[in-house]
């Protein structure tokens, strides 16, 4: 029984590895993205990375540590943890929304590309995986000094937007609110 499970696990790992090699190679050869700035993923205001830097950086934590107050330190970690978890959830729901739009588009498209769909699914699952790990790490040790990991999740989300946009160019969401307002379209959230 153990041997079968080991073989299954090894096979699964090999399949994932081959899929990754295939998709990465395909990506290197691939088309240049025709999508302007896919970055704005959790915040239509264009402040996503600022939020991430603030929540997952260590500058504020260093400052709070220097205050020599256990109560403030505890309070800081508690608040930042809650905010960081909200950030992860917001990131995840933005990606989910994108996938919903993509599913709707692909279900009505006569030119469905199976490989492209597979690649999107792979990147989406990868992104969800990063989010799950990030959430676990935040819960266990708090959000401080996690910028590098957040950058990885961010890169995944950017990739997801790029690929979805290549397959079915969507109306570019996440354009800075300021542009809309400046041109007289003063939408509010």
């Amino acid at each position, binding site marked *: 029984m153990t041997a079968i499970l080991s073989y299954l696990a090894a096979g699964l790992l090999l399949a994932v590895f081959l899929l990754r090699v295939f998709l990465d190679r395909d990506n290197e050869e691939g088309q240049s993205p025709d999508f302007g700035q896919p970055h704005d993923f959790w915040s239509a*205001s264009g402040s996503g990375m600022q939020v991430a830097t603030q929540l997952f950086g260590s*500058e504020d934590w260093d400052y709070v540590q220097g205050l020599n107050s256990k109560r403030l330190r505890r309070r800081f970690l508690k608040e930042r943890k809650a*905010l960081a978890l909200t950030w992860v959830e*917001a990131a995840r729901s933005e990606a989910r929304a994108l996938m919903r739009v993509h599913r709707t588009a692909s279900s009505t498209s006569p030119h469905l590309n199976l490989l492209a769909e597979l690649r999107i699914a792979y990147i989406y699952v990868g992104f969800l995986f990063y989010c799950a790990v990030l959430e676990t790490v935040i819960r266990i040790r708090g959000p401080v000094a996690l910028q590098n990991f957040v950058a990885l999740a961010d890169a995944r989300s950017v990739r997801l937007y790029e690929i979805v946009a290549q397959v079915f160019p969507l109306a570019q969401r996440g354009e800075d609110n*300021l542009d809309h*307002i*400046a041109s007289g379209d*003063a*939408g509010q959230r």
Partner: protein
Amino acid sequence: MDTFADAVEMARRDLRERTLSRIRTPLERLVYLASLRDYRTGRYSHDGLAIRFSEPVAATALRLEHIEVFRTVAFASLQSMVRQLDDFLSAVNGERSESLITWQTLEPYRVVVPMVEDRLSTRIFLSNIKFALAILTMEQRSTPETSAAA
């Protein structure tokens, strides 16, 4: 060419050069810009700017500037927030401790948030302000005579 957008950009420059540059900290600029917004309608108004440009241009320029200044404050480091808040609350003729209690009790900082800002930024801003107030309160307790003299 988008003339409305151009006019808004000019109005923002005008606002920065004539008014905002004279206000010392981003937090004070934020409070000032929020005070130009009608509490009922959420519309911004500034007579001088409206005369030089037009009412819609002035209102849009004020709103954009409000959002930008809000982001500057919301994403400032905690240390910077504490310093700005300290400056702001100390500006009223040495009534710092009274201002501190008022800000903690009435939470007037809630009304300085622009309407279009996303929820997470707003939460970060509110969290930082509350935390900065807690730090200032702690500092005041530990050095009461210094605070009173200030």
